[in-house]
């Protein structure tokens, strides 16, 4: 591809094997758009994969370095661009960690709103993940159905905060826009229409012989291997690790809702697919309960707390609001950031997404480290694919749901 390998390991992988039936195939970094910039160097014996070496970094944009130059409310726009399939979940995770550092308690309405958008983002992510899994093994209609439902969710987000995608919805102490009755109506319409579509989508694939043959038994991951490799999220739950941060360390409003955590023990690609579809149904239940019980009241932490922007009527009609707005925008004296470090984690659709933030008293983080689930999951790939055929490479890669921007940051 590009530059010559500069060290022994890459050189070994690229050199042909002494056994003359073994050949090397370069897979990526430009290949069908579902998984963007990943590169695999595969050593093949005919069609059997003997070894695979992932090569990453083709989308490394310096997110963590940027975190040291942007303040907490500006950095939320960058977190959108990490797992870009479900940007809302990243925003919620970032501000969860920031508010943990600053010791801010958000209002009940804000907790419920953030839960609703996080679960809608989870549905959106799983739709695209399962859609891409279907697309990679040849089921194009499934992918189009999934994309149509994502458009409905994007409509909801657009009505809520103005952007269908890369929303930057959360702010320190609250959210950028409160939910109007129109948003609640649109969410209810989505909840009415989605189960029927999910049923249609299921009927396309659940008993499809080709799909099951391509996915069952492929890429088996055992429970011990999953824990040893730091896996989390649907991939770990499909292998029998029953760890879900929404239930084990409840954050936001998850303690108020009843939902189940689907797990399977077989750990193959089909299990990962089924766990994602089951999680979509559980998310529907959570959104339903949240929307029915949405508390009224202020959505941002009050002006006197001096960390959230006051709303516009306060800014134009009261002197305290004007001064607060000016200070927060121009000088950021409103933030009380301790000189300490904290780790805040949430259950993102892909796994455990956490931020390790080091604060130094100013409104700019000293170090903003993102713990990316895709990064630890892609390291699993060589052990999953050994012994399978070339066509299984695509199935296993799809089932891991690797998002390159989160992988490389």
């Amino acid at each position, binding site marked *: *591809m*590009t*530059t010559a390998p500069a060290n022994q390991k890459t050189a070994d992988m690229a050199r042909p094997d002494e056994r003359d039936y073994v050949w090397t195939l370069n897979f990526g*970094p*430009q*290949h*069908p*758009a*579902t998984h*963007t*910039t990943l590169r695999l160097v595969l050593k093949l014996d005919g069609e059997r994969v003997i070894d695979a070496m992932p090569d990453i*970094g*083709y*989308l*490394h*944009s*310096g997110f963590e*370095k*940027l975190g040291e*130059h942007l303040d907490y409310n500006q950095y939320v*726009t*960058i977190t*959108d*661009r990490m797992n*870009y*399939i479900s940007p809302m979940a990243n925003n919620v995770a970032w501000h969860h960690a920031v508010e943990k550092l600053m010791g801010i308690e958000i209002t009940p309405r804000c907790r419920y709103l953030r839960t609703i958008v996080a679960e809608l983002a989870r549905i959106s992510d799983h739709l*695209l993940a399962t859609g891409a899994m279907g697309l990679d093994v040849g089921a194009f209609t499934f*992918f*189009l159905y999934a*994309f*149509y439902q*994502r*458009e409905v969710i994007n409509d909801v987000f657009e009505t809520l905060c103005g952007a*269908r*995608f*890369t929303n930057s919805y959360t702010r320190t102490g609250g959210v950028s826009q409160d939910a109007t009755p129109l948003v609640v109506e649109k969410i209810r319409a989505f909840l009415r229409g989605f189960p029927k579509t999910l049923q249609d989508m299921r009927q396309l694939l659940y008993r499809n012989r080709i799909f099951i043959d391509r996915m069952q038994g492929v890429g088996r991951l055992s429970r011990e291997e999953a824990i040893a490799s730091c896996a989390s999220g649907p991939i770990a739950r499909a292998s029998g690790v029953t760890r879900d941060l929404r239930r084990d360390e409840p954050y936001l409003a998850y303690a108020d809702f009843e939902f189940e955590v689907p797990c399977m023990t077989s750990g193959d690609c089909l299990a990962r697919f089924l766990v994602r579809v089951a999680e979509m149904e559980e998310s529907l239940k959570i959104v339903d309960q949240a929307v029915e019980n949405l508390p009224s009241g202020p959505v941002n932490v009050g002006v006197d707390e001096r960390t959230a922007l006051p709303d516009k009527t306060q800014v134009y009609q009261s002197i305290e609001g004007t001064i607060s707005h000016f200070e927060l925008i121009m000088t950021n004296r409103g933030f009380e950031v301790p000189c300490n470090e904290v780790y805040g984690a949430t259950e993102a659709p892909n796994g455990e997404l956490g931020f390790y933030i080091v604060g130094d008293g100013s409104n700019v983080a000293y170090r903003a480290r993102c713990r990316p689930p895709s990064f630890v999951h892609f390291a699993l790939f060589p052990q999953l694919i050994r012994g399978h055929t070339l066509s299984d490479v695509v199935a296993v890669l799809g089932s891991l749901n690797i998002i*390159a*921007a989160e992988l*490389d940051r």
Partner: protein
Amino acid sequence: MSEYLPENVAIGQLDALANWCRKNSLWPMPFATACCGIELMATGASRHDIARFGAEVFRFSPRQCDLMIVAGRVVMKMLPVLQRIWQQMHEPKWCISMGACASTGGVFDTYSVVQGIDRFLPVDMYVPGCPPRPEQLIQSVIDLQDQIQRGGTVDGKEFQLDSRQLPKRALVDLPIIGAPPASAISPAGRHA
């Protein structure tokens, strides 16, 4: 002259015919790297359908495409790959730089993101947005189709003009900011 022609005969230039054929069957090469790639997929999906404009066939092989849509940020490790794929495409070929990151580097003014692919590749159409809505991308395809119809030729002579060949003069390297002064950093870590 036209009264001697039957109704189903038209006269025109060969260039116009070639342009009409080429613009209505632009096969995109989706070079999707990041978030704009998702909006590109949404443009190809059922609600905003790019197939209406003849561009449905997203062939992932550069040998079979003529429109490269660079959707997303390009980092320095990826740029040689991008250049090689551009060189593998056959003439006539066009390039759309979709999104702020491909056009100028976007929000990412960092050590690894190329500040605009037009520094290293010839770009025909820029689509602003982060990410641009699917309707904006479709508008850019329509504008590119108009540009092809107006200025295209059968043998690609429109690409030989000086203005298309020289690298852009507006691209100036800006000074590097953001490095703290060397005296501020000491092994003990105290502020100087």
